């Protein structure tokens, strides 16, 4: 026990303060006030920044998850097992409509947050509603596409390629659906509780999520549909 018995004498502490091998250190208490304000060095950040940043990190992880499904699609792109290939699936007009709906919804989502910044409840709600309706249109078009494919016997059980196609596109559709549910709860919260601090934080996060889904869709319509149509 003696070797960990404490405290050590003042003399020892003083001697050890003069560490002769201070490799890789700055001196104690020599530098002035910390530069780098705004990066937590001046104390914890505000809640708004913490929440937004945490959600940003979550979005990155979500994008990484999508990248696995993209990788699977790229690897299994030719594994059609004698079944239909990508050219048999693509219906350009519907994809263009889907893209338009999602792009516009990103725009209205941005406008809704502009209204939130102006603390205008009516316009916030109106633009959120339009965003949700455009999202609903997107999901319905995608469902129609999947149902139409299934009617032609094109299902994920058919081949590795179709599995990776439905997996990737379906995962995005699932995200949009869940984001729609979230949007409904956000509209209810804004209506009933008004622009309280934590509700604005959630609106920031919702905005980030909705825009991120649009960015993923850019990847999907480029890599899956457009490149598929010319392959």
């Amino acid at each position, binding site marked *: 026990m003696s070797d*960990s018995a404490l405290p050590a004498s003042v003399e020892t502490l003083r001697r050890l303060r003069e560490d002769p091998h201070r490799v890789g250190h700055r001196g104690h208490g020599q530098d002035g006030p910390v530069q780098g304000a705004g990066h937590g060095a001046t104390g914890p950040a505000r809640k708004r920044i913490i929440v937004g940043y945490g959600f940003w990190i979550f979005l990155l992880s979500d994008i990484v998850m999508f990248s696995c499904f993209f990788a699977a699609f790229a690897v299994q792109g030719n594994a059609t097992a004698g079944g239909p290939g990508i050219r048999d699936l693509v219906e350009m007009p519907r994809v263009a409509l889907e893209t338009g709906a999602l792009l516009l919804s990103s725009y209205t989502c941005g406008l809704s947050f502009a209204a939130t910044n102006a603390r205008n409840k009516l316009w916030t709600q109106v633009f959120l509603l339009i965003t949700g309706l455009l999202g609903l249109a997107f999901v319905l078009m995608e469902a129609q596409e999947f149902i139409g494919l299934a009617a032609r016997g094109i299902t994920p059980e058919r081949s590795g390629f179709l599995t990776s196609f439905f997996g990737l596109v379906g995962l995005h559709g699932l995200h949009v659906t869940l984001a729609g549910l979230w949007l409904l709860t956000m509209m209810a919260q804004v209506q009933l509780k008004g622009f309280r601090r934590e509700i604005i934080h959630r609106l920031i996060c919702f905005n980030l999520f909705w825009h991120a889904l649009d960015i993923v869709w850019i990847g999907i319509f480029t890599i899956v549909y457009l490149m598929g149509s010319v392959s």
Partner: protein
Amino acid sequence: MFGKLSWSAIPFDQPIPLITSLVLIVVILGVLALVTLKGWWPYLWREWITTVDHKRIGIMYCLLGAVMLIRGFADAIMMRSQQAVAINASGYLKPEHYDQIFSAHGTIMIFFAAMPLVIGFMNFVTPLQLGVRDVAFPTLNSVSFWLTATGALLVNVSLFVGEFARTGWLPYPPLSEAAYSPGVGVDYYLWAVQISGIGTLMTGINFVTTVLKMRCPGMSYMRMPMFCWTVFGSSLLIVAVFPILTATLAMLTLDRYFGWHYFTNTAGGNPMMFMNLIWAWGHPEVYILVLPAFGIFSEVFSTFSGKPLFGYRSMVAATLFICVVSMMTWLHHFFTMGSGAAVNTAFGISTSIIAVGTGVKIYNWIFTMYGGRVRFGVPMLWSMGFIFTFVIGGMTGVLLAVPPADFLVHNSMFLVAHFHNVIVGGVVFALFAGLHYWFPKAFGFRLHEGWGKAAFWFAFFGFWITFTPLYILGLEGMTRRLQHINVEQWRFMLDLSLIGVGVLIVGAICQVVMLVVSILKRDELRDTTGDPWDGRSLEWATPSPPPFFNYAVMPNVEGEEAYWDIKLRAIETQQLSPEPAYEPIEMPVNSPVGFYTAFFATVTGFSLIWHIWWLAAVGLVSAFAGFVVFAWRDVHEFHVPVEEVARADHARRAARAAVLESLANQDATS
């Protein structure tokens, strides 16, 4: 109504799991009855189950990890004894049962023992070291813990209801596909790991945000304690790679449940893609575990040598280097799969390069001890044992990084010995060092040194007696996961390994005795100062145990080793810093949302495993309802009154003043 669930799911014909689970059920019922009789439920609910305090959550993580460590160790004992008796015989475990045991051992040890223990330490220590009052998202932290507990629960339910996977700790397809593993074993694996993996992902998000955005004033990046840096590296890796695990397991789930073709060996499925993706997660996972372990060792070496950490900046660089390069080495887990010379060479080189970063750290630790006044306390013993063990484990790893050499020992006992060498020698030793180091901070009394030292020596020698023979057996050609063995010459080494397990058991008993003795003698071992080891980072500035708000006033950091500076200034000026003006503190309120989420995650997971679709739907809808209700709550914070803050801090200052006085007396007499 109940999907695939029927009475035949209970293993009436297999005495070992049946008796084990019956004993477990009796024990659990006994504990529940005791809690009910003593009327402890309100206390447990208020202070632990719904807590959002990072220290309490950290302790619960460690408790969960410790229980599962024992469960995984029991599996290990069964495996080693089976192999020792099954030489030219069939042993006492049937093949299908043995397969479940080695699968459960790996799954439990990585996901439900090592991860919770590491995350437990992250939770307990990081906010204290950063000088803040909680993590970035306290309620989310509670959800993370309860989801991990859900996963652990599901794995253990598989012991009594149904079966566990027989596919190894990573369920390689096509064996794990529905065609070849039609039972519920793989489903138990998938849902248990998926649910706990989501919890871990949220922990990663939480700690990246905590380290980047929640530091006390003056705590710039280059002033953070080494442990915080490693926690940051580890959390970044969690955020980067746990989504890969989620995606991969989701793909296998789609294959199994809906007949899709991600990894099947028919209709264009690609089983090799599973190996590729799972190891893109699996290799960084090793570093997720070992980086915080490195952080623990850094703290221990520096404190117990009475010196600042040698080469702090190179240590930071090495941590971030490992963090990035660990994502570029995953192919070395399947050199033999046939990617060809170019790919194998590239990954062999990147694997060797990552050893450089680790080597930097080893030298830094050695030089930290050099010229220091080294105290051989229990944490220091574990750390020095770690250097010896880990260096050898690392060198066998560099050997395995060479593709031609790997071809010879791939999937042999050599590999088994290698990864136990680095994970036990790296992570488990760190956890025991950390246990001894931070236990007084958590509970207010130190652990018994004598029993701790005994535990170390038994574990150290037990480890080497167990695993050295496995290295030799691997070189002699013994493959892993053998239920019985037909080579008589291997008998001696297998027996020797079993003896090593016996020594390890003695070490484990010493740990338990250490805990019991320490609790009984807690008044003798009481830590009144809050600084039992002459520490250097901020957590030692708080009393032991710290108040739930950690700091009465947030410390202001003016250099590296924040607490060391404060302490020296106090000793030199013979007085504490002036009493601050206390203010009310805003703290997050308790929340049952974690427990609620876990309850419905358990219901949903269990019903999906057994194909009880209606119950799964009920679980999901309830979870969404809970989400909405949680969003509706009005009170997020409460204020700790000034009087309470002042009272806690006055007690702390009195203890510190007493230390100063005793130091002054010591000085006067010497």
